[in-house]
């Protein structure tokens, strides 16, 4: 076996090694947090659609994402209902209301969904419970999301407060989560929705939900519906509408850019720290490296030693960085009451490891010049 020179050189200076590991770990944590937020953004954007029992969606072309929908005629939904392969069509109404906190009397925007109580819109079984179904059908009553932020005040069943200056009773609870756009959600019947959003004609809907018969290919139905409907609505599969929503949050808003920048800056920090460490290490061993050259080692060998040191630093720094990031994800998840669906993904774990290796290798490439040009004649 070869003498593990890179490893022995690195581990000989314990303090320096610790500083280097801390530096890499720091960069790795920053990258993980930025990617974590970015990932949770994408996940939050898709979350609502994974809880709706529909494979095909009708939206206005002006709709950017679910919290800012543009209404369109409900006829489009009825037209789509006639297509072969469609099992059921369901309208969805959505918009913001001002919720009054019963304790502080302050108001805060809450996101409201309106549905026909007979439609099984959400894949949330507790909404179908007899108590909740009865509550949905009562006037001036809504169900409230348990994941709504505490700033909305007490959220117990039976609570009475105001939304947009109208009395409202919390008739029941469910667990859904509002993603990035909403701090809290309400679920109410279409009749109640029309009253709270008056004047809001029920002939205009925010989102058209289409449930397909089992085994039907959504892409084919989308094409078929598209043929029938005029251009004032878009027909999208679930994947397409999720993608559209993600693109909005990540690209159209500067959120993606900000987190992307965060990743780049973290990497630069990492490169600089590792460069400093490698450069000092090389400077300290200049005589020895020149001696190796004098006795017949080629520059390529020394180059490889430095690259090895870089890779070792990357891996050693990645391990604590990964572990700490897991803890920070957990912390964030708890702090947001599950509202920010942040979590580790295998793909991300591997990509960040590769990124750490690339980062350290760049540092190696910058610092290695010194050893490659080292003149063996100078050691005499």
């Amino acid at each position, binding site marked *: *076996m*070869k*003498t593990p*020179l890179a490893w*022995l*050189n690195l*581990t*000989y200076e314990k303090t320096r090694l610790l500083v280097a590991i801390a530096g890499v770990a720091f960069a790795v944590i920053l990258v993980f947090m930025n990617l974590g937020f970015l990932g949770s953004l994408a996940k939050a954007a898709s979350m609502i659609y994974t809880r709706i029992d529909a494979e095909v969606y009708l939206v206005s072309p002006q709709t950017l994402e679910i919290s800012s929908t543009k209404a369109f005629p409900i006829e489009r939904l009825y037209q789509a209902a006639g297509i072969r392969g469609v099992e059921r069509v369901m309208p969805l109404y959505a918009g913001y209301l001002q919720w009054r906190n019963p304790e502080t009397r302050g108001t805060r925007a809450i996101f409201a969904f309106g549905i026909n109580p007979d439609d099984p819109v959400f894949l949330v079984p507790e909404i179908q419970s007899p108590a909740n179904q009865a509550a949905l059908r009562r006037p001036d009553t809504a169900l409230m999301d348990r994941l709504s932020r505490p700033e909305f005040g007490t959220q117990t069943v039976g609570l009475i407060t105001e939304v947009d200056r109208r009395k409202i009773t919390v008739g029941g609870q469910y667990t859904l989560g509002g993603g990035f756009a909403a701090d809290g959600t309400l679920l109410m019947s279409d009749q109640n929705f029309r009253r709270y959003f008056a004047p809001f004609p029920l002939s205009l809907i925010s989102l058209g939900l289409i449930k397909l018969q089992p085994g039907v290919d959504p892409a084919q139905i989308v094409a078929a519906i598209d043929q029938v409907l005029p251009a004032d609505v878009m027909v999208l599969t679930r994947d397409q509408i999720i993608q559209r929503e993600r693109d909005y949050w990540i690209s159209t808003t500067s959120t993606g850019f900000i987190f992307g920048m965060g990743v780049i800056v973290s990497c630069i920090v990492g490169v600089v720290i590792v460069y400093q460490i490698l450069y000092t290490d090389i400077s300290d*061993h200049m*005589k*020895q490296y*020149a*001696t*190796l*050259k*004098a*006795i*017949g*080692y*080629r520059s390529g060998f020394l180059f490889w030693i430095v690259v090895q040191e870089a890779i070792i630093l990357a891996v050693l720094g990645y391990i604590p960085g990964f572990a700490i990031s897991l803890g920070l994800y957990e912390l964030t998840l708890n702090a947001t009451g599950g509202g920010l669906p942040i979590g580790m993904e295998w793909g991300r774990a591997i990509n960040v490891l590769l990124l750490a290796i690339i980062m350290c290798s760049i540092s190696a490439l910058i610092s290695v010049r010194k050893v490659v040009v080292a003149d*063996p*004649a100078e*050691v*005499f």
Partner: protein
Amino acid sequence: MVRSTLLNSMTETDHSVQIRQLNYFFGQADLRKQVLFDINLDLPKGQIVIMTGPSGSGKTTLLTLIGALRTVQSGSLKVLNHELVGMRKADLVEVRRNIGFIFQAHNLFESLTASQNVEMAIELLNEWGNKRSKAVDVLTQLGLADRVDYKPAALSGGQKQRVAIARALVNHPALILADEPTAALDKKSGREVVTLMQKLAQQEGRTILMVTHDNRILDVADRIITLVDGRLETDETLDNFVEAHDPKALDRRMFIM
């Protein structure tokens, strides 16, 4: 002239080093400065040669040229039957693998044990299996049997220099170049180191070229050459050298002690 005809009569393979009309310059253009002038020198196999001369006379420079550590453009410089003049750097590296270098500073890796430092040289030959036993063997010969797994920080100056010598000798190089190997050592360990080099060289018929200012170790030499201002001034056997110099300062008996 007499000397060069004498040299020419020898066959090529009898020599480890053969130098003809070697000139060497440092710097470029206006700053160009000649440091070696018309050097002609032959080192037969198995000979121990000491090179002396005033500071700045070009001894180290000549050593680095023979050691294939610098590129040379004019004259002729044959080392172990390789013509180094005009050779590319990549090929010089190959030649260096057959030469044992001993530097004034030991230049050991602090992070490696004595044995591992020596093994780094063995690995150059792509020998992996018995490298540890080879390293231990040579360290033992140099009296470091109980220090093979010590790091340099735990070794004395003389011991470190002996590890460096072990590294230079382990591959049995045909030619050993040493630049003031005893400069950093006290009288006793300096003496030990040189005697060890002499012993190993004689056993294995190695050629040694050693630069030293240390009069106390001149007696190991078969021959002493003197470089002054970049020119080879004298080239004598040890006895001639001692006679030609101040007998009080360089008493023959002093070397034998």
